[in-house]
């Protein structure tokens, strides 16, 4: 965990309202594992008070990149930042995915797809895993990272709600079909995306008795486990902190 003034190496639109931000930081890049996130101060001053949590999408030797969607004030402001400007970044934060070997299915919806790229890379490069990625999006313009996953050697399945690309429907329907096929049985399912998607992934994997890890989001104060602001209900009562106990949880740990 570091606090760094990171130089922006790139900050470009990729598609729809999605941007890719590349930040220079050797120390964060060296320490990061898939599923972890950065907590970024978008502006000095007091108007954008809290840091914005954003998942790590990719690491290189000297840089960390993220993919974000402009959904509000902070991400909107972030999209205006230019290369050579600096951002105050804390990271890597949180508990990432547990890397497993064998066959893995990665299910991503919306920006959730972004963090799975880092995971897929490690699964393939470090665990020699066979990775199937299911990418869900509303429409073809919002399908993220398809090529990136292919280049890594993943099998890529695309789903759009409006059917403009790939399978028409929800990515969870695709997952259900996939898991229903005899012998498909993957060793683990990893999922990152909106809550309804995660809920359904949790239900399906529990039904098919497949281990599953989900990455969750909550509004954050400190990002380091101190304020108890970002909690989600634990399955056994009480609360767990997304920033510290997560953002990646065993699907059975949390009440989705």
């Amino acid at each position, binding site marked *: 965990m570091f606090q760094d003034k990171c130089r922006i190496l790139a900050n470009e639109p990729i598609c729809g309202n999605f941007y890719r931000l590349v930040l220079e930081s050797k120390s964060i890049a060296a320490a990061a594992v898939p599923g972890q996130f950065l907590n970024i101060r978008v502006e000095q001053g007091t108007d954008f008070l809290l840091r914005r949590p954003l998942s790590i999408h990719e690491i290189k030797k000297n840089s960390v990149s993220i993919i974000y969607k402009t959904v509000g004030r902070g991400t909107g402001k972030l999209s205006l930042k230019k290369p050579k400007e600096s951002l105050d970044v804390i990271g890597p934060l949180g508990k990432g995915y547990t890397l497993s070997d064998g066959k893995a299915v990665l299910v991503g919806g919306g920006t959730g797809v972004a963090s799975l790229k880092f995971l897929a890379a490690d699964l393939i490069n470090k665990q020699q895993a066979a990775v199937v990625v299911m990418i869900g999006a509303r429409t073809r313009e919002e399908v993220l990272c398809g090529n990136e996953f292919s280049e890594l050697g993943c099998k890529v399945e695309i789903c759009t709600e409006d059917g403009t690309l790939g399978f028409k429907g929800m990515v969870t329907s695709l997952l259900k079909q996939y898991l229903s096929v005899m012998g498909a049985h993957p060793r683990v399912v990893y999922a990152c995306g909106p809550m309804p998607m995660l809920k359904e992934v949790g239900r399906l994997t529990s039904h098919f008795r497949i281990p599953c890890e989900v990455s969750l989001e909550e509004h954050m104060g400190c990002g*380091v486990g101190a304020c108890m602001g970002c909690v989600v209900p634990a399955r056994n009562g009480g609360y767990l902190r997304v920033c510290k106990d997560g953002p990646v949880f065993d699907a059975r740990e949390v009440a989705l």
Partner: protein
Amino acid sequence: MGDLKIKIGDMQLKNPVMVASGTFGYGEEYAQLVDLNKLGAIVTKSITLKPRAGNNQPRLWETASGLLNSIGLQNVGLKTFIEEKLPYLQKYDTGIIVSIAGETVDEYEKLAQALKKEKFDALEINISCPNVRTAKRMLFAQDPELARQVIRKVRRYYKKTVIVKLTPNVTDIGLIAKACEKAGADAIAVVNTFNGMAVDLKKGVPVFKNIVAGLCGPAIKPLALYKVYETSQAVRIPVIGMGGIMNFHDGLEYILCGASAIAVGAGNFIDPQIPVKIIKDMELYLRENHLGKISRLVGSLKC
């Protein structure tokens, strides 16, 4: 070299910069980012007799230069605190202030009793948390008589430094502070969060399940500063000032208005380096202005 040492009750601190209760966990959460040994004191998350799960989501909401929170005192409870959290803090060379919260006078009494033999520097009685729904709407810190009862009981068991943390949500904070002083408090911490709320317009509901939440951050600084000023005018015991402190200048305003020490709350979220930076800048300021001791500046506002 500027002398930053201060004394509050029997507690000696190497500098007057604290981190505020609830914003710094039990210390360990920030240990990778902040050198805890540099801090004047760490005020722990408020501890209750039993562990508390806290409130439902949402618990945080950003406002214009401010932050609403409704944590609901989620904490590990007295037992785990003593067994696991306190020992961790004791390894550091920093003041330890244990914040306690209860729903009844009796609970405060039990907490004081249980903590009296433990090794730490001061007890902070939080009688001002707006995020716990109790039968009555009134906080202990909104009524001089209720405040007095809590402090008397705690004082009976706990002989070291007792700080009382007050709410700004009162007509006359001086009145409450005086009652606390009389009841035996060694210092007053001002302020806890201001009552506020927000609306989720899409759903037509309050953002927070409890409706009310507590506002902190830079937005409240001018308000909190005046509460500190009023408090320090009303009592002789030291005042610990907080509310929206983001840098040394903010902190110095509090000190001039009568705060013997200051605490950084939400500022830690925005930049965990703030407390340490303040300490550095304070030292520099004393040196450059040949002021000697920081304590000389306390309450030095010329009115």
